[in-house]
């Protein structure tokens, strides 16, 4: 990932490293991905020809808690980045693991939520609301899962101290991704769960 070899010290540039600039651009692109999915959901959330409507099955207290958990994981991610900048390897591993665990708890909650909804009668093909709800939150869940696997892999690689390129930069980059996924969740939580149809 970190490919800095073609870099010359005295080129005209933005000052951001290639990797970080690349990650920012990728996240910019991701905004549009979630934008498209959220728009689809907003268009279709009230179209329930069959099965439950959003308000009927959403469990707001539960989702608030799980949103809070995801937010806390952002906090631990910040701690991991700061540990990386202080070159505190133990701290990096510790906070990355904590972040991953909190993320896993969140995904576990999402699996619970999906199972519960399914049992209450909302399948993927039940209604437009069902299709678009599962697609949107599923995409977000997959993003969190990918993030967790990146975190855990980074811990594993870090333990062998063979992270290619700059370690703190890699941690920071994964941190950027993680915070982005959190922010997207806040938007989803607000638009999907809190605003009534």
């Amino acid at each position, binding site marked *: 990932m970190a490919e800095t070899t073609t870099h010359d010290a005295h080129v005209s540039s933005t000052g951001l490293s290639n990797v970080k600039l690349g990650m920012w651009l990728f996240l910019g692109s991701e905004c549009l991905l979630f934008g498209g999915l959220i728009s689809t959901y*907003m*268009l*279709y*959330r*009230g*179209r*329930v*020809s*069959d*099965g*439950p*409507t959003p*308000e*009927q*099955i959403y*469990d707001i*207290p*539960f989702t608030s*808690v*799980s949103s*809070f*958990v995801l937010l*806390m994981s952002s906090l*631990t991610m910040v*701690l991991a980045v700061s540990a990386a900048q202080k070159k505190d390897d*133990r*701290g990096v591993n*510790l*906070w990355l*693991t*904590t972040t*991953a*665990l*909190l993320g*896993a*708890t969140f*995904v*576990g*909650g999402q*699996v*619970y939520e999906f*199972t*519960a909804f399914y*049992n*209450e*009668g909302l399948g993927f093909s039940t209604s437009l609301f069902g299709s678009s709800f599962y697609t949107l939150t599923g995409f977000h869940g997959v993003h969190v*899962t990918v993030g*967790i*696997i990146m975190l*855990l*892999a980074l811990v*594993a*690689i870090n333990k062998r101290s063979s992270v290619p390129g700059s370690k703190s930069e890699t941690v920071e980059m994964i941190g950027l991704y993680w915070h982005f996924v959190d922010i997207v969740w806040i938007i989803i939580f607000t638009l999907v769960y809190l605003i*009534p*149809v």
Partner: protein
Amino acid sequence: MFKTGSKLFLGLSGFAAFNLVAYVIFVERLAIGGVALSLVFAALTGLAAIVLLINEGDNERQPRDAALIGASLWPLTTVVGIVLLILGLIVAQIYFILGIVVVLAALAEWLVQAWSESASDDPAHNESARQRLLHPIEFPVIATLGLGVVIFSFSRIMLAISKSAGAVSFIVAASLVLLIGALFALRPALKPALVSGICVIGAVGIVAGGIAGAGIGLRSDLAEAAEEGHYLHRECGVEKSKYFDKKAMKNLSLRSNAAAIVELRDGKLSAIMVGFNTPQQLITASRANPVTFIFRNFDPTERRLVASLGNAMAGAPAAESDGEEADHAGKNETCTQLIPKGAEQALTIKYNKPTIAQTEPFTLTVPGVAGQSIEVLVP
């Protein structure tokens, strides 16, 4: 070029190919056995190719002292896999598949380990060679497995306990993770044994909880909902039904493009349609095509729009609403939720049979509002 290992695997894959061909010819085409045998063939060919590509044992020297060869996990894992495989043949297919996966994974690991240990005389180089081949797959697989266990266990626990207890235990679990993390961070001098101890307790706890949760199954209200399909029944009477009318939707995301807007205003029901300058009491709707009516309630009491779907010709249903056929009490009708004043809801109906096939007309009515009805004419 061909040495013992590659010969063995090439032979085995040849044998598997022979079996596959024989199976396809003599037993049946492309049944599950055929798929399984093709997978086995592919796996063995792949292994043979790997063995060939990595120049198996390209060292004329004999392996070094036995002491150099470390302990290996893989023979044991292979055995476990074989046991699972056999168990699967008896009990359930899932164990069989799991067994195949475990056996293949263990064999691959074993193979690479064996090869790397004889790659050179330098154990460090050997280990790094092994890592270079296997780390890319070990890291993500282990991470995914660990993650899967946590996620699965956690969700089983949540499904088993009550809604509010779930939310509470969720936040407790998350806080514990955070607190323990903070503890470790603030006390860098903690004994490694203690750290691992806490971690093991946590892991065992979550797995045990997961198994327990899976054993208990769904909590009662979920199980009941799954059984009865609460939200599938539409009850179209005056009174509020427990599930269907719960938390009625008040706004529409599709506002335009309806065939007609049906308004209940001052106790009168009328249809507003594009192209007609006055409210109508008669709607001509085309046959076999979903028509959307938007119901707007301007009455202070909660009201719903009910569409009678006629009485069918013998046998076939006269019309199908997009929802469940709601023929409670022998009535063929579908409806919106009970909605308060100012709210609106859409009702999409597909009339499959024309009016002339009916003894009673298709109508739109509002329960509790007498004498108001809109006739739907289906040519």
